[in-house]
């Protein structure tokens, strides 16, 4: 019964969203407030209905109601409670419903927090959110109904794919989807601005919290996905430049550009056309990502069973939304007037360079991701574009960005003084050079580009510290004044520095782990020793292990670190009883910032086991850096919340409209 109620709630939400979109798009010009009020209430209603539908789905999974086809296909009563819940979105239909849930949640948030927006803009934004909600809830209902029933109900389900039975599934997709779908608000704002002609600094201020929110969650989602793939897939890799990964990375790059260009628009009323364009592009890339992931059109290491016919429907939706957005953009962009003037060497100039490089990097990733599809369609040849392509192009585009990054926050708006900034950054540059050389000397010579990469990482990190130190007049004023200034800095200044510092940290992690990683594959007898990067690993043997819904072999290894400390590690090979599917569980031991990664192979004759051991120096920095970036996002968001409530109208026209 609850399942039918959930299905009904989904259909009702679809109907309400369709009507809202129609009402909003036809009546936004009206001066009375009824249309806006209706759309606000409808947006909240859509959220409540989809939430109810999602709750119904969760309830069926938790109680193992296998009369629900989806639960039968992707769940099992032996699964621990947390995996019975996460199984809801560990499949196509359920994850689409999660996507729609977050979409309408964003719409409801706009309705709840957007009371101070000009009425026509609010009406249009909610109308476009409703249009998206109608399209994607319609897609869910008509092509991927999660509420399909099965009669008679089977006694047991087929089990969730064992690789997905992990806490990663509980965290990664929701975070990633909030990021992806959050950009829909920027998209709706962009279209609403194009139609209503309200494109000014105030617009940028309204959009920025949404960009920031989506960007922060997308950062967390990508980082979490990367760490999950790292420990769960057992290949020791943390990024494969796989189409599915690129699909999430492209909106991130474009979103990062948007975050920076909106700053210029907010402060200087310039880059208006470009910012609107980026807002459209960012969400289009999110949609493209959804299409690539859900259609299975590209071969990916992360592909789960998917259905090409649904892919065609998503492609059609994609073409409609993106196509319409660009037509609108083309029609209206010409009517925009250029904003403030500035010299090439200025904060604006640095941000434009940032945008140019980020946009080019996005384009390079897009080309690399879609080229195999294109070539296959045109010539029938099957190719793959792998890591070497992306490392070459993406690396070459990112390097100059990292070089200029520390200059940006130091430059003044309108006209900056390059020489003065260079002087203030000299200490940071010297320190970065010194530490990079020291690091390199201690770690031993390796790949030729590694020292340069390290230098860049340290440069960015120290540059961010220099920014904070400079703002607090550290070493130039007395300590008391400096401390007072340090605590008095606006949170956005801290956020900028922390995010940039995080990028430096991530770069250092990436470079050191790719340059100084050591790997060993060896067949070991119980009692045998292996040595990797100064760590001695002794194989003690294999015993049986039993879990709630799996059984398997568990290896025992004693690791002696170079410092003399001893630890025991247990990599496993599991077979899940319901599906009979095998998985390996790597054992990861963290030493400081570095990790030792053990993977157990199939047992051979006479108790031998093949063991693969990696030493990954400073690999945790990769994720620590992204966590810093996300913290910076939240920090900035917490500051901004005070201001979203009451944006000041920036022009006479707005005052007239309010």
């Amino acid at each position, binding site marked *: 019964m609850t399942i039918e109620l959930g299905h009904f709630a989904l259909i009702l939400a679809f109907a309400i969203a369709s009507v809202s979109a129609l009402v909003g798009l036809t009546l936004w010009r009206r001066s009375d407030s009824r249309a806006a009020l209706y759309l606000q209430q409808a947006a909240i209603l859509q959220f409540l209905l989809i939430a109810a539908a999602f709750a119904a789905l969760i309830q069926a999974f938790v109680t193992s109601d296998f009369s629900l086809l989806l639960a039968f296909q992707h769940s099992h009563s032996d699964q621990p409670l947390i995996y019975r819940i996460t199984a809801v979105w560990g499949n196509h239909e359920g994850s689409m419903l999660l996507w729609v849930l977050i979409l309408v949640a964003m719409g409801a948030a706009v309705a709840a927090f957007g009371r101070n927006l000009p009425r026509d803009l609010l009406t249009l934004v909610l109308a476009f959110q409703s249009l998206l909600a109608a399209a994607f809830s319609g897609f869910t209902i008509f092509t991927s109904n999660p509420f399909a029933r099965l009669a008679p109900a089977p006694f047991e389900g087929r089990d969730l794919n064992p690789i997905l039975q992990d806490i990663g599934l509980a965290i990664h997709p929701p975070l990633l989807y909030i990021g992806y779908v959050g950009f829909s608000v920027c998209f709706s704002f962009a279209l609403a601005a194009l139609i209503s002609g309200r494109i000014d600094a105030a617009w940028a201020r309204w959009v920025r919290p949404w960009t920031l929110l989506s960007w922060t969650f997308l950062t967390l989602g990508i980082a979490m996905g990367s760490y999950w793939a790292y420990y769960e897939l057992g290949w020791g890799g943390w990024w494969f430049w796989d189409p599915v990964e690129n699909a999430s990375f492209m909106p991130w790059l474009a979103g990062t550009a948007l975050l920076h260009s909106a700053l210029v628009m907010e402060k200087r009323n310039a880059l208006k056309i470009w910012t609107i364009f980026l807002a459209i592009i960012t969400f289009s890339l999110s949609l493209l990502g959804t299409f690539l992931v859900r259609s299975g059109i590209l071969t990916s290491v992360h592909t789960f069973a998917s259905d090409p016919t649904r892919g065609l429907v998503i492609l059609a939706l994609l073409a409609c939304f993106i196509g319409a957005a660009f037509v609108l953009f083309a029609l209206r962009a010409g009517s925009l007037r250029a904003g403030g003037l500035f010299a090439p060497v200025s904060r604006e100039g640095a941000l*434009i360079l940032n945008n140019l490089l980020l946009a080019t990097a996005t384009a390079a990733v897009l080309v690399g991701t879609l080229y195999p599809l294109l070539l296959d369609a045109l010539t029938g040849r099957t190719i793959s574009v792998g890591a070497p392509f992306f490392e070459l192009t993406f690396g070459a585009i990112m390097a100059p960005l990292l070089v200029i990054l520390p200059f940006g926050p130091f430059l003044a708006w309108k006209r900056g003084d390059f020489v003065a900034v260079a002087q203030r950054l000299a200490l940071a540059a010297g320190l970065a050079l010194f530490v990079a050389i020291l690091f390199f000397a201690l770690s031993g010579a390796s790949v030729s580009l590694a020292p340069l990469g390290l230098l860049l990482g340290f440069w960015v990190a120290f540059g961010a510290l220099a920014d904070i130190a400079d703002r607090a007049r550290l070493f130039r004023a007395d300590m008391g004044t400096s401390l007072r200034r340090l605590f008095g800095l606006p949170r956005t200044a801290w956020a900028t520095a922390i995010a940039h510092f995080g990028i430096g940290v991530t770069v250092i992690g990436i470079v050191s782990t790719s340059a100084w990683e050591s790997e060993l594959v060896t067949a070991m007898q119980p009692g045998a020793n292996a040595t990797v990067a100064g760590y001695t690993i002794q194989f003690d043997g294999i015993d049986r292990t039993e879990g709630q819904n799996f059984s398997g072999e568990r290896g025992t290894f004693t690791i002696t670190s170079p410092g003399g400390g001893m630890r025991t590690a247990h990599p496993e090979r599991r077979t899940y009883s319901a599906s009979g599917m095998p998985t390996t569980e790597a054992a990861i031991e963290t030493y400081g910032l570095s990790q030792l990664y053990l993977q157990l192979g199939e047992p051979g004759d006479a108790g031998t086991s093949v063991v693969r051991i990696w030493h990954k120096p400073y690999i945790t920095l990769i994720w620590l850096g992204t966590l810093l970036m996300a913290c910076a996002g939240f920090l900035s968001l917490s500051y901004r919340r005070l201001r979203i409530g009451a944006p000041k109208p920036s022009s006479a026209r707005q005052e007239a409209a309010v």
Partner: protein
Amino acid sequence: MTRKQKRLAVIGGLGAVLALAATLIFIALRDQIVFFYSPSDVKERAVAAGTAIRLGGLVKDGSIERIGETNGFIVTDGETEMAVRFVGILPDLFREGQGVVVEGTVGVDGVFAATNVLAKHDENYMPKEVVDALKQRGEWQREGGG
């Protein structure tokens, strides 16, 4: 500089960066892509030893053998067979009779030296390239590869 000259300089700068990036992408696309071949393709096209390719097909029944950490198996597309050598741990779902994609190079001895055996997350999933290659060779029996 006048405003017009300034704007021209900026546009010129942007154009230069974009042109550079486009050249880079073009060169990378020419040199860094990896072609997918079935064992028959490798034979027909006489792929030179040392070329990095992706090889796809079915793992031949009874062909897996393991000596220490070195795995040997045969990839077949029904017409041609190719021996593959891989040092490391094979993916969990690597099985005889199932589809597989391996990355590596054709050795001088004609044995394919794999650097990577691509895993699947899902038992029903078959790499799209393998499905296409098998269809081409008339070896495809199952409808809808998942």
